[in-house]
């Protein structure tokens, strides 16, 4: 009994400590993003663009491929049910709504977590182990300005951009399958059905979600990176936990936003 109390107490304290650390990280990032540039301490734009290329442009092929396949899969699953009522043209509604409101933001976030969230943790963790973070401090360079802000800005822009492209690719996947001889929906009808069923709010829902997913991926990656202790093994362990924490928080956030948009 005491061990259960002790365990949950320790877990609660750890969670509180982690929450505090993340808050410090957020305040520091916002300070170097908005306040310090006003005092003449500029942003590192070149580094930001390089990170944007890494997080956004280089993620496109894999995100595009996966989202195309997911589009094909949802179309096929929908066809399985709708064929029984001869209502295959409604595949367009299902694919469109799922892609925009749910699957494109989610798949993009999960893939970018695996590709870039882990890389952020590994980079910062390795730098910490190799005393490079200490070297920044000693040189009078602020790690937040130098390492965190460029990654944060790049992620903030990259994830929504990739998500919007992923939405179209997913719809394209669904379109190609539905209009193939396998299902045989008329392309014009499919197009009209898609355009008529979707409203701007569906897209906004997806984009808003993706912005918060991007912030989550970045901050979890950075936080886990700074937690690394003790050599290569520590880097490996925190990289894994960065991906797990990130995906868990993304699903949790997804639930919150979906609930909000459901009632809104």
């Amino acid at each position, binding site marked *: 009994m005491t061990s259960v109390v002790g365990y949950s107490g320790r877990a609660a304290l750890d969670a509180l400590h982690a929450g505090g650390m993340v808050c410090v990280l957020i305040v520091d990032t916002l300070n170097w993003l908005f306040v310090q540039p006003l005092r003449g301490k500029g942003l590192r734009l070149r580094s930001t663009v390089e990170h944007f290329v890494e997080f956004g442009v280089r993620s496109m092929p894999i995100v595009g491929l996966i989202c195309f396949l997911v589009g094909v899969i949802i179309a096929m699953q929908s066809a399985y049910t709708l064929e029984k009522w001869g209502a295959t043209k409604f595949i367009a509604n299902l694919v469109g709504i799922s892609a925009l409101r749910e699957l494109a933001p989610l798949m993009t976030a999960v893939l970018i977590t695996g590709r870039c969230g882990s890389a952020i943790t590994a980079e910062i963790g*390795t*730098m910490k182990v*190799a*005393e*490079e973070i*200490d*070297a920044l*401090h*000693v*040189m*009078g*360079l*602020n790690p937040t300005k130098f390492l965190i802000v460029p990654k944060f800005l790049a992620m903030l822009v990259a994830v929504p951009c990739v998500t919007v492209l992923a939405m179209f690719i997913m719809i394209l996947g669904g379109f190609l399958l539905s209009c193939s001889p396998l299902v045989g929906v008329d392309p014009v009808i499919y197009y009209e059905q898609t355009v008529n069923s979707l409203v701007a709010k569906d897209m906004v829902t997806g984009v808003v979600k993706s912005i918060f997913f991007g912030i989550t991926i970045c901050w979890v990656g950075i936080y886990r990176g700074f937690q690394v202790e003790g050599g290569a093994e520590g880097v490996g362990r925190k990289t894994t936990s960065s991906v797990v924490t990130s995906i868990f928080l993304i699903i949790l956030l997804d639930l919150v936003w979906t609930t909000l948009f459901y009632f809104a």
Partner: protein
Amino acid sequence: MAASNDNDIIIEVRDLVVKYGDRTVLDGINFQVRRGEIFVILGGSGCGKSTLLRNLVGLMRPYSGRILINGQDFTAMNDEERTDARKRMGMCFQGSALFGSMSVGDNVALPLREHTRLEESTIEIMTKIKLELVGLGGFGDFLPAELSGGMKKRAGLARAMAMDPEIIFYDEPSAGLDPIVAAGLDGLIRKMQHTFNLTSVVVTHEMESVKQIADTVCMLERGRIVGLGALEELRALDYPYVQQFFARRAQDESQIDSAEYLRSLTGLE
């Protein structure tokens, strides 16, 4: 020690106490470093010498005590003042801590690009001068991973020298290097002192290095200073730990206090 006035003192440590949790790692540390000398902090593994260095460069905050650099209290500064103070210091890390994603030249140029408004062409020339100074001319475009251990340390020194500091801190400069490369690095530390009247604080446990470079030696044992002065003064000290260190003799098993040994096993006071 030569008579000195206040202007000659560049670093002064007063009653420094450092704790990790409840454990006291450094206790009552007092010393002064004169301008232009090579001050060696010597001691065995786990004696607290790296912790002392981390406090001197402000990577750790002490529990109590003061560290005065050029008469200003380094421990009481706010972030901005500390950043300014740091522009006048350089540090060579044990593993060199070069940024792996940047070329050696970019590593050296980084402090200049961030802290000064110099033209890019000027920065390039200054970078080349610093690399020539440490014997790495022509290696500016190499990545740190392409350099040997000794070359990395030299590149680390070039980066530490980038802002023309007054004080330079070395963490185990000859650790992990063969004797020839280590001797070369010792020579380089001397050269920097002679050429630029640079104050150097060197943390090491290598006796050979100490003999080559030290003006003043500060010897630590279990977080306390057990000897402070020129190498010859320390050698003359009648203190078992110091004598052991100089003679490179292992700890005599019979000298271990049995009561203390028992305490260390049981954890009871």
